[in-house]
């Protein structure tokens, strides 16, 4: 049994063992299964409370213990990184943490630690045998920089733990209604337009986003606004800049294409509210024409301006990574009423969204 200090390592002599620890239950333990490059192969490589067993069966996170079985580790996994994160706090407020395994013992002194995410132990392959290392380094920014360090993209919003012992937040993060605007959110996704269909006037749909810091490595993001329209007679069409399909007269029209988000205006779609009685439904969507699918940084907001009504806005904030297409909102016309519903559903592309909402088009790649 070796006592490890931060930075030191020792050989593991048993293929299957238990690491006991004293980490408080309010602290989230995650284990990253890493390839040779120090990154996960895919999102399955992150083992955490939502998925406490690694797909390869090597890691099983339990309360107060981590079960490790090194018998059948896939050949493309070189390292398991055992980490811990605290929400909105630092490890300085936690008690000292100790780990005990068959071959090692170590104690992490939390005094003065500014990190919210810590890499505590690494179990890694070295010359075809397994070793354990006491790392004791981490990130002040918590889970996000930690996960990114290992190649996992996570959304800005923390995943809500179903059986969390922590008290629920007292205030709701997004107000459902503010003084001048109607906000469509996950909890209140729908609004009926007050005027009767057919006398709505010009409905203007705006998409605006932040171009983002154009740095040496990343140029800005180019979002395109588009819409699917289906008439009551069954005719269907798409308006979007891609393929130069700017208008489906007299119902819907896409105005100029903003390539950067620099324009304070963003992109606009006009819907003729006076002809809307012939319309069955319209789905407003956006997709990333260029730039990486980093919706979090784009801060995209879609606003519907209906005459004599407060603007109706919805933010694309429940994002999902690596998807370049978002169905934002659906307008449905029924019994002389137009209902606007927030969708906020992410897809890989047009074809996926088409499938989900039954548009029935054939899709092929194009550019503008």
């Amino acid at each position, binding site marked *: 049994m070796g006592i490890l200090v*931060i*930075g030191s390592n020792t050989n593991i002599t048993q293929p299957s063992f238990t690491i006991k620890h004293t980490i408080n239950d309010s602290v989230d333990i995650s284990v990253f299964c890493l390839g040779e490059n120090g990154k996960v192969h895919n999102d399955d490589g992150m083992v955490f409370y939502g998925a406490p067993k690694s797909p390869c069966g090597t890691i099983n996170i339990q309360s107060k213990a981590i079960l490790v079985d090194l018998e059948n580790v896939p050949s493309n996994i070189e390292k398991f990184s055992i980490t811990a994160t605290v929400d909105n706090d630092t490890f300085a407020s936690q008690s000292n943490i100790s780990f005990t395994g068959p071959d090692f013992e170590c104690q992490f002194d939390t005094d003065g630690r500014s990190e919210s995410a810590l890499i505590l132990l690494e179990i890694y392959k070295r010359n075809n045998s397994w070793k354990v290392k006491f*790392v004791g380094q981490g990130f002040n920014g918590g889970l996000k920089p930690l996960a990114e360090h290992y190649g996992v993209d996570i959304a800005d919003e923390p995943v809500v733990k179903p059986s969390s012992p922590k008290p629920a937040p007292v205030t709701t993060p997004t107000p459902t209604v503010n003084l001048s605007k109607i906000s469509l959110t996950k909890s209140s996704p729908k609004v009926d337009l007050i005027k009767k269909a057919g006398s709505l006037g010009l409905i203007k749909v705006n998409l605006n986003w932040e171009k983002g810091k154009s740095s040496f490595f990343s140029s800005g993001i180019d979002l395109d606004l588009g819409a699917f329209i289906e008439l009551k007679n069954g005719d269907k069409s798409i308006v979007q800049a891609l393929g130069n399909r700017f208008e489906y007269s007299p119902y819907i029209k896409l105005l100029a294409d903003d390539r950067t988000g620099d324009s304070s205006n963003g992109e606009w779609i006009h819907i003729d509210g006076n002809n809307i009685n012939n319309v069955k439904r319209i789905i407003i969507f956006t997709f990333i024409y260029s730039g990486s699918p980093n919706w979090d940084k784009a801060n995209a907001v879609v606003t519907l301006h209906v005459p004599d009504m407060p603007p109706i806005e919805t933010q694309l904030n429940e994002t999902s990574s690596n998807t370049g297409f978002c169905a934002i909102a659906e307008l449905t016309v029924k019994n002389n009423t137009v209902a606007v519903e927030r969708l906020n559903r992410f897809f890989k592309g047009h074809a996926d969204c088409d499938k989900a909402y039954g548009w029935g088009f054939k899709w092929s790649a194009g550019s503008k």
Partner: protein
Amino acid sequence: MAVSLQKGGNVSLEKVAPGMTNCLLGLGWDSRATDGADFDLDASVFMLNAEGKVKADNGFIFFNNLVSECKSVEHTGDNLTGEGEGDDESIKVSLKDIPADITKIVVAVTIHDAESRKQNFGQVSNAFIRIVNASSSEEVARYDLSEDYSIETALIFGELYRHNGEWKFKAIGQGFEGGLAPLARQYGVSV
């Protein structure tokens, strides 16, 4: 193809790089990915005689004395973070200009402020020392230290030494207590 050395291994420079007169001792490590004080590694060189001592204090080449009196050894300067690809610190050595009574050139690396920053070599990733032929930029020998150290804050990475009239390089990877000052004293430098 460079020779990869294990701890304690040695190689004849004449064999791996025939006719090499100027070489570069390159040292590198990964900059810190996690939050906290940077890893500032400092390379130092001791030019030793047959007794294992420096002839004078200026036989100790480090960040405050970058060039040896004989000009055969030159430290190219201090990298404070380990950022960037390749060598983080390098030392130019003109083999033919090394005075005849110098039999050994020891390269040591210390972690700056290790004690107050609570750092050791076990926390530093991918540290290495390599020898590059200055005229062809070709790497001729390399020693990756990764697993050979853990709690040390000062390490002798390797040494160039004369053996039967030729220069050899040996991978040492040996830690020493207390940082740069006691090591310098051991080699006869007044600090």
